[in-house]
């Protein structure tokens, strides 16, 4: 049976990790490739690089880091941040990314999603949705949660799936960075209404939150950053905790 995916995420700026694991045995803790190698060895199910600056100059450094990661890590890698053109996607895929995550450009020009899916296949198109609670329900936000897009998050997720997205990376901007756990109502509302897989993101502070995201949020994958980066938990701990809670998950470091 298909296993729930546990996905660590590295925030990268200028090709350097700004929020990453504080492992003592790293030669260069700011090198995304070094961190990727550790997560690969630890049995993470996938890895996500999020380029939070996404500036033009930083792009080549990121592409280089993606390339070096893909040469050493034989696991799926999603890269997001600043993906605006088909050429951006092509360059990331050629560098070694397996999936790209698109956010702002999909809001600005939804047909970009169908163009990308037709060109490269749905399997490599992840749509990142940053959502916040609004009086009317859940709204879509862009630019790191600052700008309201004026879209209903559920309808938007459905539209993205219809246009060819292969999966959705759903982040609660209300919970992101709070360590209060996923917004389970939001997660469930989207997961139960789209035909494609959903990665829950934003707010993980404990291992129980990972369990909740699957059990009560119905997510197919859970993403976390800080609980791994600051050495609070390892991938193996998270996986054995989820397994003990009855979640179907691949054991860390087992073939």
């Amino acid at each position: 049976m298909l296993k729930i995916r546990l996905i660590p995420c590295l925030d990268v700026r200028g090709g350097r990790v700004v929020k990453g694991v504080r492992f003592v045995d790293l030669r260069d803790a700011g090198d995304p490739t070094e961190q990727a190698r550790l997560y690969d060895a630890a049995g993470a199910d996938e890895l996500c690089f999020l380029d939070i600056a996404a500036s033009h100059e930083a792009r080549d450094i990121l592409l280089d880091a993606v390339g070096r990661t893909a040469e050493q890590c034989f696991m799926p890698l999603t890269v997001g941040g600043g993906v605006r053109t088909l050429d951006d996607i092509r360059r990331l895929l050629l560098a070694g990314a397996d999936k790209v995550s698109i956010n702002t450009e999909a809001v600005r020009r939804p047909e970009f999603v169908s163009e990308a899916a037709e060109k490269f296949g749905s399997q490599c198109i992840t749509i990142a949705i940053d959502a916040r609670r609004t009086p009317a329900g859940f709204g879509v936000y862009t630019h790191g949660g600052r700008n309201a897009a004026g879209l209903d998050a559920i309808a938007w997720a459905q539209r993205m799936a219809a246009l060819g997205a292969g999966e959705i990376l759903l982040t609660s901007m209300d919970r992101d960075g709070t360590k209060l756990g996923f917004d389970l109502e939001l997660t469930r509302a989207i997961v139960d209404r789209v035909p494609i897989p959903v990665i829950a993101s934003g707010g993980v502070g404990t291992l129980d939150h990972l369990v909740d995201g699957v059990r009560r949020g119905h997510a197919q994958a859970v993403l976390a950053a800080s609980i791994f980066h600051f050495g609070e938990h390892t991938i193996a701990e998270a996986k054995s905790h989820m397994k003990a809670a009855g979640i179907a998950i691949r054991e860390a470091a087992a073939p």
Partner: protein
Amino acid sequence: MPQVAIIDYGSGNLRSAAKAFQRALGGKGGVAVTAEAAALARATHIVLPGVGAFADCLRGVTALPGMVDALRREALEGGKPFLGICVGMQLLADRGLEHGDHAGLGWIAGEVRRLEPRDPTLKVPHMGWNEVATAAPHPLFEGLSSAHFYFVHSYHFVPKVAAEQLAAADYGGDIAAAVGRDNLVGTQFHPEKSQTAGLRLLANFLRWRP
């Protein structure tokens, strides 16, 4: 020493596949990513990768001058170990029903259909790590009898001959995880993205003497 030819017909990124084979070879052999039909004659092992849509991939392979003939000569008739990955595996079927009805290479009897898991909560694409069970021992899966591999696909190979389904995964019903006969094998999953299990499978492929 093995010389692996990975066929490059513009289907996605072949860098990780090449690197995974290099790792599996451990320096004992070579890997060539190639678009040239003539390169297959020099190879000992042939790999057909593929991501995207069935018809696009098929068009990509047939657009390479002499490639389909070379594949037939070296693999189908010549008996060189052949591995198709994901859509590269699906192309071996008689026909593919993704966006129309397209004739495949017809090396392994069967057709490629849309995934329709019986359980409506199961999502399509089938994406992530799934446990793969072998139908009968096969050299490709030596030491990997119930390992997990990484899948990402919305269509699946339905073989006509039961014995040609080498391994299965459960996704709201049995789906073909690997098909094959004689010197031909294909995996629906991505060994090059399946960490240690994937590298082991590639090493098994390189050691295989069909």
